């Protein structure tokens, strides 16, 4: 196991872009974790003169917004929201996706047919419109945004899990399990799933990136949770001031872009490192 891990790390590190992404992700996580120490007071509190440009006053390295709130503090706390929603939404999507995909492939026949039509349904509904509808009906709470984003993101995971399960379900080890009288659930999740998991994990990491973009769009439109600081909301708030203080929009956008970029690079790196076809190229 240890050699496997070392081997994996070496392969991952050979991809320089993935390494850059990994470092960036660590930085974002670090900022999110350290936010309460770096900025012990409420980030939505007014600290100084409004619209101070970045790099002008060393106390507010990223400047202040239209109300005089510290942008650096809001960015740091926004990292927590972003990562939390991204992770939870991706987890939701992964759980739904694996359950649907695994059930469809394992049982086949009409179960497969019904579940794949169901998957198709969620591919047809315009995803952002669906998220906005759910949030507007259920209410602007961070939980609802997370669940809504998860509900529109499980589609590719279900398809991938199904494909993996289809290639595994008739293998000898599965037949052996059946011959031993193992139950369906135990075979599906105890025996087949561990073998199907690596590519699914890669996709889940990419779903986090997508979820971050979704969340930013929802809070940009002003439909996110008003009680948490969020990068998307910051951009939305700064929009009216683009003629004078466009940096208020620019800074959080860069934060979103770097985070999504880093997550994508790590996902690609994981894919290369786990994909047996590209091994030892």
């Amino acid at each position, binding site marked *: 196991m240890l050699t496997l891990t070392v081997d994996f790390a070496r392969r991952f590190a050979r991809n320089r*872009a993935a390494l850059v992404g990994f470092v960036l992700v660590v930085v974002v996580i670090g900022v999110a974790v350290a936010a309460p120490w770096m900025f012990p007071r409420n980030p939505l509190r007014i600290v100084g003169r409004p619209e101070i440009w970045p790099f002008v006053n060393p106390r507010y390295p990223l400047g202040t917004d239209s109300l005089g709130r510290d942008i650096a503090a809001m960015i740091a706390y926004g990292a927590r929201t972003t990562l939390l929603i991204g992770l939870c939404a991706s987890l939701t999507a992964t759980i739904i996706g694996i359950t649907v995909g695994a059930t469809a492939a394992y049982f086949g026949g009409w179960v497969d047919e019904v579940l794949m*039509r*169901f998957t*198709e*349904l969620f*591919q*047809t*509904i*315009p*995803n*952002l*419109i*669906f*998220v*906005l*509808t*759910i949030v*507007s*009906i*259920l*209410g602007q709470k961070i939980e609802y945004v997370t669940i809504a984003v998860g509900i529109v993101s499980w589609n590719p995971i279900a398809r991938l899990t199904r494909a993996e399960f289809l290639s595994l379900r008739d293998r000898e080890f599965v037949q052996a399990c059946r011959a031993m009288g193992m139950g369906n659930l135990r075979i599906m999740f105890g025996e087949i799933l561990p073998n199907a998991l690596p590519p699914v994990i890669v996709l889940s990491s990419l779903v986090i*990136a997508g979820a971050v*973009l979704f969340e*930013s*769009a929802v809070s*940009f*439109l002003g*439909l996110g949770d008003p009680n948490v600081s969020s990068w*998307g909301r910051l*951009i939305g708030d700064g*929009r009216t001031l*683009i*003629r004078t203080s*466009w940096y208020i*929009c*620019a800074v959080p*956008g860069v934060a*979103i*872009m*770097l985070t*999504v*970029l880093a997550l*994508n*690079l790590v996902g690609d790196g994981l894919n290369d490192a786990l994909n047996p076809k590209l091994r030892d190229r």
Partner: protein
Amino acid sequence: MRRIVLRRLAQIIPLVFAVIVLNFVLIHLAPGSLFDVMTSEQQITDPSMLDQLRHTYGVDQPTWVQLVKYIWSVMRLDLGFSYRQNAPVLDVIMDQLPATLILMLSATAIALLVGVTAGVLASIRVNSIWDNLISLGAVFFFAAPSFWLGIMMTVLFAVKLGWFPVGGMRTIGTDNGAFADALDVMHHLVLPATALGLFYAATYARVMRASMLEVLRLDFVRTARAKGLSSTRVTLAHVMRNALFPVITLLGLQLGTILGGSVVIEAVFSWPGIGSLLFDSIMSRNFPMVLGVLVLGSLLVAVANAAVDLLYLRLDPRIRPR
């Protein structure tokens, strides 16, 4: 062939049916009665009107009767009535739909043009500076939120340089005939369509590059070269044509996302399409309109998906049935 087209179109029906049922479930998920929210938000207090509405929405009947009624009314294209615009939901959406379609089509065109060109360039000069620059650009545009890109482009090209208008679809108070009007709309369209299209351009560039490299290795390309065809001709007529298939597949899969993306872009550029309509309706809690946009949006994607599938059938003789 005709039977296949009909069968593919028939597959849309159960899908739309399912969307309607899902809509119904959403209505019933709402905390409290959606009917109460609707009537109070629209400030309807007249008892006779309330009764009529109660009858229209069938809130006094069992759930399954309500479901059947709801399905029946949507089947007759009755998506309800919007008291805000004082018009049927369908009419309001149909009024705004063309603007959204123009935006979506232009964004898709830009995405295809930029993405395919960049992908082809990168693939014929693998590992060159061009390839690296294109890959870098693709990585960035794939990560940038389109609404943010839109705002930044507005700052640069509209506010600082003044080349393009900040928002809207037409210059107010001008009437110089159809041609001038079309030019005016195109002028307003450049920034929103580009902001929306660049994300997809990044995706297509990556897919196109990989697909080109895949096809370039195939035997028929060597045959074409051996026949003495020029390398431009081989690249364009033989390789590119075959390498386009994954891009078309992706395009079909992403139509729903593009429609969703245009909602945000419309909000950024005050583009008067169904995105703006949806946003206003959410803000004013005009639920019949919100659900109407969801149903029609899904129908649009379902039809477009079918169209892409049929296009595929036409382009790729291998999957064409005999």
